[in-house]
């Protein structure tokens, strides 16, 4: 066991950190947010140049062969910058489905275009009634000769407004919440019958509501086993949650640093408020919460590739619980210790707080994952 980065990982981290520190300086971030898509196409090209967009894909497919640790490095840094570009949607979610579910031919078609930045992906798994259950699918896929015909409505599709390719879960057979009978379909966003309505999210990203009306895709445009793709979805979801954990560490660490810095500089009653022991101890409790979360983000990274789905799910659920709880504590305390200034859009800490709050609500909140973990018997035999 070795927690140190190797030379390549260190290089990756340094270059991403440097890029984000520059490009995601607070005022510059506002400019990215003001662009038409709500993020920067120019930066997206830079990510491609740096190899970040192809990072997790096999070299044979045109990627750079990075593993979970490399993804963790990138996402932690992106969390620290509150990055707006659709990296998570395209590379982590979409890319995950491609890596684990695509045929060689599909990979040959998709990976180079993801890696060079010319194709954006989104993963449309949620529906109005599904809450966090990816098996709760009403959208249908019906075979028609050499095609599938898709119908239904998908909701809260992260960066679905800009995606070129939308990966859609739809039901081929079975009842509304059956685990069997689900397929993942590769839908071109410009295909006839695809309608989408984009909107901002609370944390400055974008999502979309997507309607599919008799959308025709080729019979081969499926990922995983049509009718048995939920295992693929679970696997990618678990990987994605590990990614959210890594992103959270960047978010939390930034909030903690900003808060400690504020305690050192903000004067009240003739001295820095960081002199007050009650506030010191609360900053320490934030730090402990952060370090515990960091440990679980590492654990999630370790276990994201675990072959046994039950083991993997328990580990990921545990990590999501810790991230959610630590994140809430660190975020709420960051705001409280700042006082009024933390409540304003003009100051950065509130934006971290909002991102952290939203991360807890993606793929199920801490309560839900705790219930899952408890139902599965906990972590220790």
């Amino acid at each position, binding site marked *: 066991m070795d927690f140190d980065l190797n030379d390549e990982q260190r290089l990756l981290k340094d270059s991403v950190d440097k890029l984000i520190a520059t490009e995601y300086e607070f005022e510059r971030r506002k400019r990215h947010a003001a662009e038409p898509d709500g993020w920067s196409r120019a930066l997206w090209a830079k990510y491609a140049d740096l190899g970040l967009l192809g990072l997790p894909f096999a070299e044979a497919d045109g990627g750079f062969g990075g593993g979970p640790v490399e993804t963790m490095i990138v996402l932690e840094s992106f969390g620290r910058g509150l990055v707006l570009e659709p990296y998570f949607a395209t590379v982590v979610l979409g890319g995950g489905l491609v890596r684990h579910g695509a045929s060689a031919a599909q990979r040959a078609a998709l990976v180079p275009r993801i890696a060079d930045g010319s194709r954006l992906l989104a993963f449309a798994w949620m529906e109005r009634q599904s809450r966090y259950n990816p098996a709760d699918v009403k959208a249908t896929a019906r075979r028609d000769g050499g095609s599938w015909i898709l119908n239904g409505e998908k909701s*809260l599709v992260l960066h679905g407004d800009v995606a070129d390719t939308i990966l859609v879960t739809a039901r081929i057979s079975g009842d509304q919440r059956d685990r069997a009978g689900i397929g993942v379909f590769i839908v071109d966003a410009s295909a006839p019958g695809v309608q989408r309505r984009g*909107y901002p999210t609370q944390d400055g990203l974008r*999502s979309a509501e997507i309607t599919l009306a008799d959308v025709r895709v080729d019979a081969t445009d499926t990922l995983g086993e049509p009718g048995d793709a939920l295992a693929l979805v679970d696997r990618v979801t678990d990987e994605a949650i590990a990614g959210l954990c890594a992103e959270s560490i960047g978010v939390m660490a930034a909030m903690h640093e900003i808060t400690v810095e504020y305690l050192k500089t903000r004067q*009240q009653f003739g001295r820095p408020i960081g002199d007050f022991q009650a506030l010191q101890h609360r900053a320490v409790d934030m730090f402990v919460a952060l370090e515990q979360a960091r440990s679980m983000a590492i654990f999630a990274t370790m276990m994201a590739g675990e072959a046994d789905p039950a083991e993997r799910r328990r580990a990921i659920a545990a990590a999501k619980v810790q991230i959610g709880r630590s994140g809430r504590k660190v975020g709420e305390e960051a705001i*409280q210790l700042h006082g*009024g200034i933390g409540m*304003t859009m003009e100051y950065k800490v509130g934006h971290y707080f*909002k991102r952290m709050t939203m991360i807890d609500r993606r793929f199920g*909140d801490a*309560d839900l994952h705790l219930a899952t973990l408890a139902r599965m018997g906990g972590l220790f035999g």
Partner: protein
Amino acid sequence: MDLSFTPEERAFRDEARRFFRTEIPQAIRDKVAEGRHLSREDIVTSQRIMNARGWAVPHWPREWGGQDWSPIQTYFYQDEMQLASVPSPLPFNVSMVGPVIATFGNDAQKRAFLPQIANLDIWFCQGFSEPGSGSDLASLRTTAKRDGDHYVVNGQKTWTTLAQYADWIFCLVRTDMAAKKQEGISFLLIDMKSPGITVRPIQTIDGGREVNEVFLDEVRVPVANLVGQENKGWDYAKFLLGNERTGIARVGTSKERIRRIKQLAALELVGDTPLIEDAHFREKLAAVEVELKALELTQLRVVANERKLAKGKPDPASSILKIKGSEIQQATTELLMDVVGPYVTAYREEREEGWNEPPVGPDYAATAAPTYFNWRKISIYGGSNEIQRNIIAKAILGL
């Protein structure tokens, strides 16, 4: 010890309930219940209806519209107002500047301002906080220099709630630069239309515009607008800040929000089952209800104790109401996010005239996260919870 309400107390409660639920327009009360923004007009309408009934300023002196209510009546008035989702009469008017003028102002000021303050014909905002002052309010630096019949005011105020609607601002200003921190401060009433006043909005993290910066640049204020004595303003400020004892816990607001959470959690399905039947959710909710019931009793005890305290002397136990009241209100905003689930994430901007986008998910989803974000303020403002702990440590525990 008699732990039941008298028939008179119950009758008063019923009357308050009837009044708030039938006289204040439903549309305004729905906005409050749903956590949506109120327009200036909404707030004015509601307060004028109360004022017409004599219920806008019940705690004022009788000659200026007060009601001489018992503490229990005052409690029911506020509880029923909150339960009915009626917006409180503008606190800057009725709980802050009004009582100060009524207590320390001269007759001319009382006649000129009090009726208009009660009826919200004049909208006041509060000019206390400054950049850098925070919990250390007395460190303020806005100056007022005497120039004939006027003061010339220079400085900056911040966190000025709803300054964009205000006709007047009451300000703490430094009139004696040589004096010690708390001395040399005066209490001025300033017309917001005076030349030299600029209002700049501060957007809060929920996306709303509630607070502002107010810049004062060579603003000329007639000496007649000084309340009380020059350099005694700190005393009036302390009076003002210690004034609002009951209602600070907002028990009625939390009760109403819990009712709403239960209502929505019965609609929201997790699979086939309404969320309200999920044991974990129910227990989380019940735990908040227990704390809220305890707080309600704690508030009644503080209220009952008021009679024994010198008038205007704040009970340090009211700091408990602030601490627990804010924690419970914040907990209810989190529960509301739990109800909404994934749809918490979608942002939908609300303008003065209403929503500008169709809903994403259920129509009650859009306010969940903004309310959670916005409600972080209640453990910060009005004396942060840390300051409240200092007060209890010193004044009650003797530490």
